[in-house]
């Protein structure tokens, strides 16, 4: 196929005509807003598909009440409960009702402890986000730093060492890494606490706060007590490290591959031919174009961190959404599981949207 419409301006003689409809400098074009709107609208089908899949998969082989309470209640009692909750109606009716409730922000009530799922999300959400945020910082520092070194020193000893480290990072299941860290730093060396988000004393301090955010680091700063802050950070180091290193392994690989690919591209060679130093080639010429694919995949990884939080929180008894999810899983409380999973699905979609917009902001081909 021929390249569509490339050289229009060139068909004109030696002095090419000034082009008529070129957008002006630094003004974000209407095309970009269109992109953002279209991309935003794409979230809706994504969430809808995920909600649908989650709903039907969870309900494919039975109702949640039998799963949670079967064996503990008599068949009659069970039947009564099922009827009361409406689980004996056609699945499609229940699905429509569920979608309706979802639009109103109602995710149902847990079976085992009879709490609205939304309450669980608000109560435990902060802990998970705090963990994910700390882990992300670790992953970004380690991943970008080491990834760039590896790309620069490609095929030499530092590259080999960094790659081995990266592969080890993602070959190690996060819960095993957690156990190892616990064993070494808490049990054998006794440097750091082995579980929980803070000590009892700190918890009592938090009780004095008028408006606790649930983010312990912020709360500790509110209190202004360095001892509490230190305690919170000590508790956070190991879980954040376990979750962060897992993601760092992926980031290293991602950064390395993409930087190598732009580092060997024509435009970097052209810049080299003009005498630009290797250091600057790496930090500017190769880095910015590499950033576009890197950010896209990083966004996906951030979403995946929320899933990685499940075993991490379980290992460290970090009372967040992941810990609750695993608790409800053990209790076979599928209403709660469904609610938490759907929340994660929504977060995943939104994060991916934000990431696409950021990478479009970097890429002038989308921006204009």
């Amino acid at each position, binding site marked *: 196929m021929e390249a569509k419409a490339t050289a229009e301006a060139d068909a004109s003689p030696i002095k090419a005509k000034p082009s008529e409809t070129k957008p002006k400098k630094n003004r974000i074009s209407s095309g970009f807003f269109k992109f953002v709107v279209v991309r935003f609208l794409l979230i809706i089908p994504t969430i809808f598909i995920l909600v649908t899949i989650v709903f039907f998969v969870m309900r494919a082989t039975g109702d949640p009440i039998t799963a949670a309470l079967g064996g503990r209640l008599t068949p009659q009692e069970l039947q009564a409960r099922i009827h009361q909750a409406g689980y004996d109606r056609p699945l499609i009716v229940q699905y429509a009702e569920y979608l309706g409730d979802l639009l109103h922000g109602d995710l149902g009530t847990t079976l085992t402890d009879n709490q609205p799922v939304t309450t669980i999300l608000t109560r435990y959400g902060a802990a998970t986000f705090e963990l994910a945020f700390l882990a992300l910082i670790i992953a970004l520092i380690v991943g970008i730093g080491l990834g760039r070194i590896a790309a620069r020193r490609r095929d030499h000893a530092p590259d080999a060492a960094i790659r081995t480290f990266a592969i080890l990072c993602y070959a190690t299941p996060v819960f095993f890494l957690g*156990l190892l860290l616990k064993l070494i730093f808490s049990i054998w060396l006794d440097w750091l606490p082995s579980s929980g988000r803070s000590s009892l004393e700190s918890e009592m301090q938090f009780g004095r706060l008028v408006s606790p955010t649930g983010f312990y680091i912020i709360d500790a700063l509110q209190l202004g007590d360095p001892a509490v802050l230190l305690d919170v950070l000590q508790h956070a180091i190991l879980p954040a490290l376990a979750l962060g290193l897992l993601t760092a392994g992926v980031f290293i690989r991602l950064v390395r591959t993409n930087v190598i690919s732009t580092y060997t591209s024509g435009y970097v060679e052209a810049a080299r031919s003009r005498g630009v130093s290797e250091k600057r080639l790496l930090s500017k010429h190769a880095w910015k174009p590499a950033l576009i694919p890197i950010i896209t995949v990083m966004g*996906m990884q951030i979403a995946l961190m929320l*899933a990685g939080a499940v075993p991490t929180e379980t290992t460290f008894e970090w009372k967040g959404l992941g810990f609750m999810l695993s608790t409800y899983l053990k209790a076979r409380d599928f209403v709660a599981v469904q609610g938490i999973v759907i929340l994660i699905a929504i977060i995943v979609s939104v994060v991916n949207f934000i990431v696409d917009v950021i990478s479009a902001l970097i890429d002038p081909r989308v921006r204009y």
Partner: protein
Amino acid sequence: MSAANAAKASHGAPTVPGDDRLEELRQSTKTSFFGKLPIIKQLRIAVGWQKGMLVTGLILCGFFLLVAIFAPLIAPYGYSQIKDASGQAFPTQAAPSAEHIWGTTVGGFDVFSRTVWGARTAVIAIIVAVLCSIFVGVLLGLVSGYFGGWVDRVLVVIADAVYSFPSLLLAILMAIMISHGQSGLWAGIFSSGLSITVVYIPQYFRTIRAEVVRMKESAFIESARVIGASTWRIMTKHLLKNSTRTLPVILTLNSSEAILTLAGLGFLGFGIEPTAAAEWGYDLNRSVSDVTAGIWWTAIFPGVAIVLIVLGITLVGESLNDLSDPRLRTRKSAGEVIGSIEDTSVDPSTQKDAAEVVFTDPNTGDANEAPAANTVNKGDES
């Protein structure tokens, strides 16, 4: 090459020194059938660190495969055995000793035996998961990519949605659906395997579809269309084989994810019951409280087993990925100026349109145009 032939055809003798050596080069580069086998070929072209990685990976994979096959001979006890032959119950949480070289668990299992048997479960799970997801994913990708249209669009949106969703959570959902959270005997392995299958179908689908869409526009598919070949013939004879070139890479990388997902399921209590088979994730789950008490042997051994098997598979996958991408591949420096004059004016690895590259092999030669198998490693959140 062609210039040389044209010259020879019309004038006989070569005009510049170097022509004659080309003939020798051609003879010596004929590769044997053995040399064309997938892994062997990669082993031949790999150098330096890359070779080291590939060899290490292959050794680790081979080791675990052997352990899986000969588990009954290697393991001193059964995976669910808690009494010795005389009916004497094993001690619980016993430190490594002569009878139990890696100690025993809280349930009285022999850690060494459980770890050995676990290799078998892992290998079976990989095989089930990879075989099923490859089959379905490739088929869907081929059909969807070639025909396009609204079926394609719907499949892509679904695959993208599922792909962006954390695979461990998806596997949990599938496990709930398949076994409703209660794993029986072999059903346990299969429900884990199938959960993993469903999770990875979108990945194969996306890869194959991308390849097919790219190739659909390529000249050799167009030439098949212009000849009048039927759709079936184009798909089976021309597209299928050519679009599966990047599969070995994805396959290995996904196998390692499959193990991590299986272990993650086990760790969260959705895996295989201990009486049905030995599974490392379950063992790690049981060892969480042991660790707090300073009992290290129940966690370390199954954990290291997971790390090593995933490490082995990942090393193989990473090496294959690097070798299939000319930009990532390492080559030796010649050291001195030697060799024959070749019909490439520049380094073939950087020049896409060197029309006369003659001595490249079918995979690497075309890999110039093939997008690097950008197997986005979807992360192992387990």
